[in-house]
């Protein structure tokens, strides 16, 4: 980037807006492709998007992108104006997608700080061939002779540019001067021909008659001619030299002006004053200006569902939101430090309590607000899948429909980033391994086209994302066989429930597909999905019926940063258990405790037996309280499994800010059962327990 003024935020904005436009265009194409043709609204919109991308990438000097966008714009211009009938819209979509992919790759390079050095000439060529084919011209590349040309100035413009610049002849007055004006514009100011037109327009009523060289003001050639030789205007007027000079000297980008009184007043004779200026194709009677104008009117009054930045919406970088989040987190801790300050113990402070209540209310409202700001609907993530389903379905020869339910469900921005890849993996899997070929489906008596549905919904403090297919389902025998081969079985096959068998596929090193395909099964298994989801504190579950289909459910917490927790004490240590997973807490009775021959301790609650976990033993904490009757039992539940945690006492419920364990601890060793830590009001550190981790111990 040689542009001196280009800076980081500008580049970010360029990338952000371009990607948004591309996404918007992709969903437009997918939506239209399904109906077999493009609506004129869609064509207009795509034209506008390409036009915008062309303009902004040219500003940033990303020529590869702008030339390609220009070609696509041209193609859609033809589609819009000529409304050709013989268009193969599937080919068109493929072509446009290829182009978008190219632009995406270039933008990706730019984002990584690399040179955007792709070569779009091949793509541009295909676009031109396609464009020629819909216009019914000879479409062989030789005939087109466009290969390798990337400079838009060199390309014969496919748009029939033609407009009328007319001038009504006025009655002549007796007092007339004839002037010759020669104007030169600043080099590279662009569209010199139209600047000349502007000059003529500015003079307007001051002139009685006029004639200019070059004559055609709308030809790109005349732009070049004016650039090289200047623009000469002969005019008849009843105004003085000074008046004309005053108007002309105001011309923008004027480099040089010569205005002289002409000797030969016949200069203007025999000039047709109605000048019709045509470009290449003079048979076309549609004027460009009215064409564009029509589009203008089309745009008006129509709701355009676009990613246009509206005045009431601003874009904020996620980094700033993260900072804000951290600050609010600090504030929550500070609030706790003030309100639960040990210095206040035993004091009767009515006014303080009142003020504290107010503070707590505002802090929690602020927290909710910050959370709400970070929430983003899953729409974009879900709609990306359309493209995958389309491309893969085509390659694999499977007819698959993607159903999207609840795309408006919102989750934290950070979480979206973490689930995008797993979701793509799941959809690919469903298409590749789940949905059968059309023949197989017919043989089974199913409808020929398969369906994959993506659903999102809120459930408590979790968001459920469900990927469902109506394919062949998981084969338990094959999973068990594979697990046996890879030595992944952890208990005897007969003892395993369906769920446990299905869960085997989430283990690292498991992959049932024997042949590796282009899309899935490249050694990246389902374990990656689990890992990604678990990073954000979510869980994956699976259900499947043979020949009916498979359902994979991702349960993801709404937000990561602040949770409602119950603080407990063991010896001098504090722990926090997420409220959401606590079922009950109680002081146990001696007679309910059972110890089995292997000295596993259990407790009987309402006729059911639950294992007990002594926290002080697990984490090696010194405590006085080792008899169950002296302490407290907290029953936690995760994924329908329960566990009783034994601790000294409950300290109370509080919102806590989840902080990751310091890196040096993470490096040292993996501590099971902990998700992070938090700071309590009295300044002590509390470790946040991971219920799922504890149960699987």
């Amino acid at each position: 980037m040689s542009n001196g003024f280009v800076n980081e935020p500008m580049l970010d904005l360029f990338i952000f807006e371009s990607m948004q436009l591309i996404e918007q265009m992709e969903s437009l194409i997918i939506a239209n492709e399904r109906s077999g043709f493009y609506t004129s609204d869609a064509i207009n919109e795509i034209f506008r998007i390409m036009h915008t991308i062309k303009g902004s990438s040219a500003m940033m000097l990303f020529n590869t992108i702008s030339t390609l966008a220009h070609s696509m714009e041209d193609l859609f211009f033809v589609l819009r104006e000529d409304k050709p009938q013989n268009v193969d819209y599937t080919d068109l979509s493929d072509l446009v997608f290829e182009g978008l992919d190219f632009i995406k790759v270039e933008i990706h390079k730019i984002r990584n700080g690399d040179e955007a050095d792709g070569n779009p000439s091949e793509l541009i060529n295909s676009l031109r061939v396609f464009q020629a084919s819909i216009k019914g011209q000879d479409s062989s590349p030789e005939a087109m002779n466009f290969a390798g040309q990337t400079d838009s100035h060199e390309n014969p413009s496919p748009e029939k540019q033609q407009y009328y610049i007319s001038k009504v002849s006025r009655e002549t007055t007796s007092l007339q001067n004839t002037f010759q004006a020669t104007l030169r514009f600043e080099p590279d100011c662009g569209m010199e021909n139209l600047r000349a037109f502007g000059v003529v327009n500015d003079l307007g009523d001051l002139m009685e008659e006029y004639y200019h060289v070059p004559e055609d003001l709308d030809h790109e050639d005349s732009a070049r001619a004016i650039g090289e030789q200047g623009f000469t205007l002969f005019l008849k007027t009843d105004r003085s030299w000074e008046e004309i000079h005053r108007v002309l000297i105001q011309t923008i980008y004027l480099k040089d002006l010569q205005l002289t009184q002409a000797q030969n007043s016949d200069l203007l004779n025999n000039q047709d004053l109605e000048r019709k200026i045509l470009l290449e194709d003079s048979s076309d009677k549609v004027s460009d200006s009215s064409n564009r104008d029509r589009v203008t009117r089309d745009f008006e009054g129509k709701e355009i569902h676009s990613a246009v930045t509206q005045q009431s919406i601003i874009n904020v970088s996620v980094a700033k939101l993260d900072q804000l989040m951290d600050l609010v987190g600090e504030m929550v801790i500070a609030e706790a430090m003030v309100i639960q300050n040990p210095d206040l113990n035993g004091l009767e402070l009515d006014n303080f309590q009142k003020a504290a209540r107010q503070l707590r209310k505002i802090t929690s409202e602020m927290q909710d607000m910050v959370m709400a700001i970070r929430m983003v609907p899953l729409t974009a993530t879900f709609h990306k899948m359309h493209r995958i389903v389309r491309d893969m379905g085509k390659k694999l020869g499977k007819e698959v429909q993607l159903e999207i339910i609840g795309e408006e469900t919102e989750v934290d921005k950070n979480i979206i980033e973490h689930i995008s890849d797993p979701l793509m993996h799941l959809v690919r899997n469903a298409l590749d391994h789940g949905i059968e070929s059309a023949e197989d489906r017919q043989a089974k008596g199913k409808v020929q086209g398969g369906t994959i549905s993506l659903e999102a919904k809120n459930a408590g403090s979790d968001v459920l994302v469900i990927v469902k297919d109506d394919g062949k389902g998981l084969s338990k025998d094959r999973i068990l066989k594979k697990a046996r081969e890879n030595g992944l079985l952890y208990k005897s096959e007969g003892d395993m429930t369906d769920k446990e068998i299905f869960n085997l596929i989430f283990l690292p090193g498991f992959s049932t597909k024997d042949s590796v395909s282009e899309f899935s099964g490249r050694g990246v298994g389902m374990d990656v999905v689990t890992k990604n989801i678990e990073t954000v504190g979510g869980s994956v579950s699976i259900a499947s019926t043979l020949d009916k289909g498979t359902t994979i459910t991702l349960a993801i917490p709404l937000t990561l940063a602040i949770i409602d927790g119950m603080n407990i004490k063991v010896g001098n240590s504090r722990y926090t258990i997420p409220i959401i997973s606590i079922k009950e807490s109680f002081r146990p009775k001696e007679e309910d405790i059972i110890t089995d021959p292997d000295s596993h301790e259990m407790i009987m609650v309402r006729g059911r037996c639950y294992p007990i976990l002594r926290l002080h033993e697990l984490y090696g904490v010194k405590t006085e309280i080792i008899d169950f009757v002296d302490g407290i039992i907290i029953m936690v539940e995760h994924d329908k499994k329960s566990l009783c945690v034994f601790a000294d006492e409950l300290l109370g419920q509080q919102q806590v800010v989840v902080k990751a364990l310091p890196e040096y601890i993470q490096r040292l060793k993996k501590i099971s059962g902990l998700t992070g830590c938090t700071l309590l009001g009295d300044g002590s550190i509390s470790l946040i327990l991971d219920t799922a981790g504890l149960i699987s111990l």
Partner: protein
Amino acid sequence: MKKLLIVDDEAFMRLTIRNMMNHYDIEIVGEAANGVIGVEMYKEFRPDVVTMDITMPEMTGIEALKKIKAFDPQAKVIMLSSLGEEGMVIEAIRSGAKTFIVKPFKEKFFNQIIYDVLGI
């Protein structure tokens, strides 16, 4: 202090212009993301000069130009055009646009055009 209003649907272009505009005596009084808001902002701020993108959703630059000119015949509007928009540029000039600038443009050109239009 001269007042400049930017009307462009792309935040990227608005930022570009903001970055390019470096005269101590020119203040950017507003940024409008479409023609409708542009016209409203013109009425509110009465800027000395307006940069107006041609292709915008909701209301195109040409329509906005016409509305602004109808409100204030003295309005100085500079159109931002790209190659391929010659027809629109002609219409803009007919409708009273002061001049136009062709994208992509350089900082120097941009400032010059603003100075020329403002006569500073």
